[in-house]
């Protein structure tokens, strides 16, 4: 979520999950995020969330360039003050990290030994000349990428695509109405669209190419993997992902306030089909 609106937003998100930021961390973030913006020359800084490890937690921030749809630059910190850059995720990293299970340890240099987990993969790696270990940092990168790609969402109309390609925030976005806010189709995944091309021509004709250039949440598999709740009788609409437990999205209808944040253990909820 937007770094500047962090305090107000945290109050709205705290309704679920319970985990949040202590006053000390909040104060630290209020200082270090603007400094990040200055040092890396970001246009915007988003506080992405926190991944809980067994012995410590990782705090993640994202920086955005003028084209909001470009890959975001991610940084992590263990104490909300000193930030380290994370390299962009590669497909190999994601594939390897998917095989790891269990909690994060809390130490970025911790190494997972493939030999214990998956001997076949370990052998493959041996042959290709690499060591069959994966560092926790890579696992972190891959996990954040997965979470963002799978469940990072924005309301419809918040971003607009210019004819030349770059994506900007829509200055005329006044917020969703209460009726629209309850529907899953008013929210989009903020990543490369996958299902957009599969729509029928009739559906495509109704789309507005400037605002409807992303996948909506309607066709997420499995159905029901989002929990939509109106808190305080409709003053805030909160979406929680059931696939990645801990991701919370909030939006105050008829205003420009929205954002998502992740507070969790960084594990995918593979039991989702049984739990619904």
């Amino acid at each position, binding site marked *: 979520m937007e770094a500047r609106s962090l305090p107000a937003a945290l109050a709205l998100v705290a309704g679920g999950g319970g985990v949040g930021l202590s006053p000390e961390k909040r104060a630290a973030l209020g200082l270090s995020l603007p400094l990040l913006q200055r040092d890396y020359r970001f246009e915007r800084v988003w506080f992405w969330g926190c991944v809980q490890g067994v012995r410590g937690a990782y705090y993640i921030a994202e920086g955005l360039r003028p084209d909001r749809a470009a890959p975001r630059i991610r940084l992590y910190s263990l104490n909300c003050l000193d930030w380290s850059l994370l390299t962009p995720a590669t497909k190999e990293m994601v594939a390897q990290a998917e095989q790891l*299970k269990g909690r994060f340890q809390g130490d970025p240099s911790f190494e997972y030994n493939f030999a214990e987990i998956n001997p076949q993969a370990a052998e493959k790696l041996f042959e290709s000349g690499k060591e069959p270990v994966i560092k926790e940092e890579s696992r972190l990168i891959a996990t954040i990428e997965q979470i963002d790609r799978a469940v990072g969402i924005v309301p419809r109309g918040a971003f607009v695509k210019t004819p030349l390609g770059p994506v900007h925030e829509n200055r005329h976005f006044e917020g969703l109405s209460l009726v629209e806010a309850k529907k899953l189709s008013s929210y989009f995944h903020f990543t490369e669209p996958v299902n957009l091309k599969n729509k029928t021509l009739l559906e495509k004709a109704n789309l507005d190419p400037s605002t409807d250039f992303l996948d909506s949440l309607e066709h997420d598999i499995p159905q029901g993997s989002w*929990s939509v709740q109106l808190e305080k009788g409709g003053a805030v609409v909160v979406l929680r992902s059931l696939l990645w437990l801990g991701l919370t999205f909030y939006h105050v209808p008829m205003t420009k306030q929205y954002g998502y944040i992740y507070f969790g253990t960084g594990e995918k909820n593979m039991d989702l089909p049984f739990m619904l």
Partner: protein
Amino acid sequence: ERGHGPYQPHEPGYGLDQPEYSPYDDQIPDPKARMLAIQNAKAYLLKTSTTSGLNLYDHLANVLTKILDEQPTNTVDIIENISKDVKWARFQKKMDTLRDEYEILPTFEAAEKCKALFIKETGEEGVIEEEIGQSPLPNVMETAFYFEQAGIGLSKDESYYIFLALKNLTSVQPIQTCRFWGKILGLEMNYIIAEVQLREGEEEEEAGEEVPEEEGKGMDEVEELEREEKEKDEPPKSTYKPPPDIPKEANGTGANKYVYFVCNEPGKPWVKLPPVTPAQIVCARKIKKFFTGRLDAPVVSFPPFPGNEANYLRAQIARISAGTHVSPTGFYQFPEEEDEEEGGDTYEENPEFEPPSVAEMVDSLSTWAHHVKSILKQGRCVWINPQKLEGKNEDEEEEEEEEEEEMDEQQEETGPPLLTLLSEDEGIKGIPAWTAQHSTDLIPQHSVAIIQSNRWPGAYAFASGRKFDNIYFGWGHKYSPENYTPVLPPPVQEEYPSGPAITEAKDPTLEEELAFKAAQEALAADEEEEEEEQEEDD
């Protein structure tokens, strides 16, 4: 044609046929007259029409404004349409008698309900003053402050609403002790849960539930007899007797030590959860389902859960309490008279408790202890022998001896006793069961010790000096590193034991039958010979 006024100077009426103004005059006409002409023209334009109430001046002004605003292409070609559109728009507005109904958003209703929480009771002020010292109401804001130091908790507003809602609860129900247990998230709505001990003598509701059951049993017996008399051609009834239900623990002991009240949001009425039965706990261990937020929702699962969502919620609350409610070691102690062999269920505060420093509480887990009894595999805290239950059953159609032989002897189940230290909790796959940390590293004098459970993600406890508390915020499920595998259905039941009497044998072939017949005849022949010989002897 005629009727529109003098536009061109040669037309009569323009004023040039007056003396002084001839079209052949080269002099500029008198400015005053010109002004007069302009005013006449404007007055003419401003004349309101008798049929529609519009006047040309305003209409032209609107049309030109619209054109300048929108700047369409080829305006001159569509000017008539634009003029019509402007007139049409005006027309609609005047005739529109519909008004937007002021939307009563659900926001406002919810705000009303929450406001009701803030109403102070004016009737019993005198009584309230006396009871303040013994109020069962916990100081929710104080607990929230300590948890906030660790980043755990709800927003301050919501904590305050919960505070007021608990106050309502204590004024309505006869409550001895009360505690904010935590919040469990659901798909449509969430649950706010209060852990409560009712004052003694408030348990009449339970008796009401048992009476209808006994009547039901009586009815069944009568019906069975009737049926037996009427139809004796019925196929034999199965001799399967399900194992007896393990009775739930009495209110006030074991898993039912506390009574739980839930509500969806502060401001909504509190609902009491029914006590938990061992069968429900055993089943809850095998399933993993999200809560929907409605207490009467069915829980569709395998093995089928005996109850609806209210029972499932209660079972999960019992498991979480048993697994994660902790206190600093030594805060509670066994009273000296209790016989420890019975597995003392009661504990009392230790008046001589000296709180260890926060650093000690974080470094070693042996400074924390469970103060809720753990639940055995049976689903109860105190083991009960199911075989003894058999003897109490009144429907004894079978002989007792047979059953006792068939049932395996069940081992008495034991669990860790009350007040076990946390350091003896098993971890899961290398992850310790609890993670302890300071709330702040920068200011150690005022830091609070926080532990969070890794087996039940969402369970937290804090300790600072003599103050401590437990809380739960989460979805209500246990952590398991492996994926959930549903229980397989039981193997198909055998209909009857196989033995030589009923095993099919191959039909004898023709040769075997002939051989058998020959053998029989030979035997018969032998016997006849013997008889003949005997007769002859006689």
